């Protein structure tokens, strides 16, 4: 029975997750559009999930903790997306823009 644990070393998977996290971080930091920032955050959450699943598969395949945590992360991501997008729509209605650097009325 071939399995990924023999075919791919764990550090490769972790590096992939790290790279994905960094790409997402770049997106979250550099985008002006708030929806773009949200996209970056989703990428980061996915990277975290890859890590959780990889640790589950390689280190403790008969303990469910890794998969369960990943499911919780997905739940939180869904909630975050719903609230975040609602806020973006509210901001758009009030200010006719979704760019993060133009919503600055609290700036000193």
């Amino acid at each position, binding site marked *: *029975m*071939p*399995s*990924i*644990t*023999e*075919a791919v070393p*764990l550090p*490769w998977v*972790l*590096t*992939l997750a*790290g*790279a994905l*996290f*960094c*790409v*997402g*971080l*770049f*997106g979250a*930091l*550099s*985008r*002006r*559009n708030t*929806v*773009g920032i949200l*996209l*970056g955050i*989703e*990428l980061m959450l*996915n990277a975290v*999930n890859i890590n959780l*699943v990889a640790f589950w598969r390689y*280190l403790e*395949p*008969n303990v*469910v903790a890794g*998969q369960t945590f990943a*499911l*919780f992360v*997905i*739940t*939180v*991501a*869904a*909630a975050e*997306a*719903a*609230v975040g*997008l*609602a*806020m973006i*729509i*509210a901001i*758009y*209605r009030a200010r006719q823009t*979704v760019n993060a*650097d133009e919503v600055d009325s609290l700036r000193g």
Partner: protein
Amino acid sequence: MNTLITVLFLIFAAIILASAIMTVTVKNIVHAALWLISSFFGVGALYLLMEAEFLGVAQVLIYVGAVSILILFAIMLTRDLEGSQNRQLTPRWWIALIVPAALFSLLIVPTVMTHAWQLPPPPPAGQPPAISGAQQIGAAFMREYLLPFEVAAILLTVAMIGAIVVAFEERERRRRVLTLAEQVRLRQRQQQRQQPAPRPEPAATAVQPSEATGSET
């Protein structure tokens, strides 16, 4: 067989990373969302490769089926900001490039590559390794992780109510799209206000477009 899995892993990794890079760099925000979906699919395929069937399908169901469609929906509701003349990146985006690049090359890669992972011994040949599947996850949610499960349920309810409250708009304050007759009346009223002595104006007649006739089947 192992080479096949290695090749598949590399293909999925390439899809994930390439789509992610397109997501954060592409100008048009709808294209960014579509690339994000492609990246989600790649991650789902990676889960399947790691034999996390339930999670792989849940990834497609929740991320691709719900979260991304919500994002597209929000983008479409906040339209006319995706113009190409609009700057998409912040002015000092190169600082934002340095931070993740440094994080990746100085922290993540050295740590991951040099750490000695205590991998469990491979299972004896001919015997499939014990892998927890959907049933074990379900049982865990009802036993060990009951409290987090309930908290997640409350979180989702609160998030749903919160999203409705935040995005809700009073019907009174909504800008209605006027019908043609209402526009004509409104214009007449405004003209009356401008000219105190109103002259009888020719009634504006709305030209009805010829009704499109034709049945589908």
